[in-house]
């Protein structure tokens, strides 16, 4: 209130605050489930019948804060994009953590294999 200019134009405050608000389509984890029959792999993948790899999509806020667990570099990259070189891409919404997947398959020689694979299901997203 001390600043007569802001008092005179309340919209400036709104504009100022907007840069800290979450984007409308915020970066978040989205469900995606596929079945191996869609890939015609169900003849040799016995289990699981369905696989939910999930995916990340959305905009990254300019001032990230702790919610995304993003490193400071992410804000620096936003700064580079906005002030120094627009050819440098803005930070992207990408998976930050995964969980493994167990798969039961028929091998070409007719033997049967149970295997656990790392990083097959996205469980969390981040901006970086």
């Amino acid at each position, binding site marked *: 209130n001390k600043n007569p200019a802001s008092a005179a134009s309340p919209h400036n405050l709104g504009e100022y605050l907007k840069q800290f608000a979450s984007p409308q389509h915020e970066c978040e984890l989205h469900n995606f489930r596929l079945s191996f029959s869609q890939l015609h792999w169900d003849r040799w993948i*016995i*289990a699981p019948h369905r696989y939910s790899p999930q995916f990340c999509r959305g905009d990254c806020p300019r001032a990230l804060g702790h919610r995304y667990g993003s490193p400071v570099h992410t804000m620096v990259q936003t700064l580079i994009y906005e002030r120094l070189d627009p050819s440098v891409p803005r930070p992207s919404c990408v998976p930050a953590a995964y969980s493994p997947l167990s798969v*039961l398959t*028929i091998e*070409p020689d007719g*033997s*049967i*294999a149970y*295997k656990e*694979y790392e990083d097959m299901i996205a469980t969390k997203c981040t901006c970086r």
Partner: protein
Amino acid sequence: RSRGRGDSEDAPGFLAAPEDAARQLSAVLQLPQGAGAAHALLPPLLRVLRDRGPRGWQSEEPRLQPDSRALRYMKRLYRMSATRDGIPKEQRGRLYNTVRLFTPCWECEHRPGKGDVHSVDLLFNLDRVTALEHLLKSVLLYSFDTSVPISSSITCICHLSLKEYDFSSQVCPGISHSLAFSLHFDVGKRKWVEMDVTSFLQPLIATNRRNVHMALNFTCLMGDPQRSTGLENAVNVTLVPPSLLLYLNDTSEQAYHRGSSLGPGRKSSSPLVAPPKGDRGQGNPRGKRASRQRR
């Protein structure tokens, strides 16, 4: 390399075998060597990504169909090892992240001689086991077709020997070492009987031997062996040639590595803590209680 679509003459071998495709693509995509072989999903994934057209993934190589009994066993193992969403269950101290079941690729049953001694020669081909899959436990898995009444108990005395081909002599395979053991079980309750042969096969698999030739002689007696030893109680048991089950720890990057959940300094007594056993039902009740208390 040609960047054309679909089958390209001048890029032979791309469709020859997924592993070959993976190996050639891995040279392009800088994948670590051997990643394709260790990751059954990688070669088909690479092929789908390489062939953009709808036909890309349909040219799967033919696969031999496994024995339905073996399939049933492995489906149960899957249910006990992973959740409905396919996520590996966390069982305290479980080290294996790979289980392979092999059925004999060659078997020769000898006519029963005096009494009811059955003998059979089996050959297992373990080519699918990669160098990064380290053996933790190996089990011979029996399922029985018996003509005895369900409720009785049977004792089988098995004599197992490993045969090695002595290529220098080109005569008969020599017997490298042998093992004798007895199995006592109630036919009524069990569909499967597991016979731990880890120490027996360890030296073979550790030296990357991929063809395992076994000779099995067994006699099965009805009732408790303590009370009657004569063959008059011999029972006509038709033994379905056993499958070979290998519990392995895959150390490749793509495999799931669970830290030892026992914490520093505490080790489980065996590399496999209570692996899924036959018909013991779903999981480990103690494990359930512990997780409930934790919750």
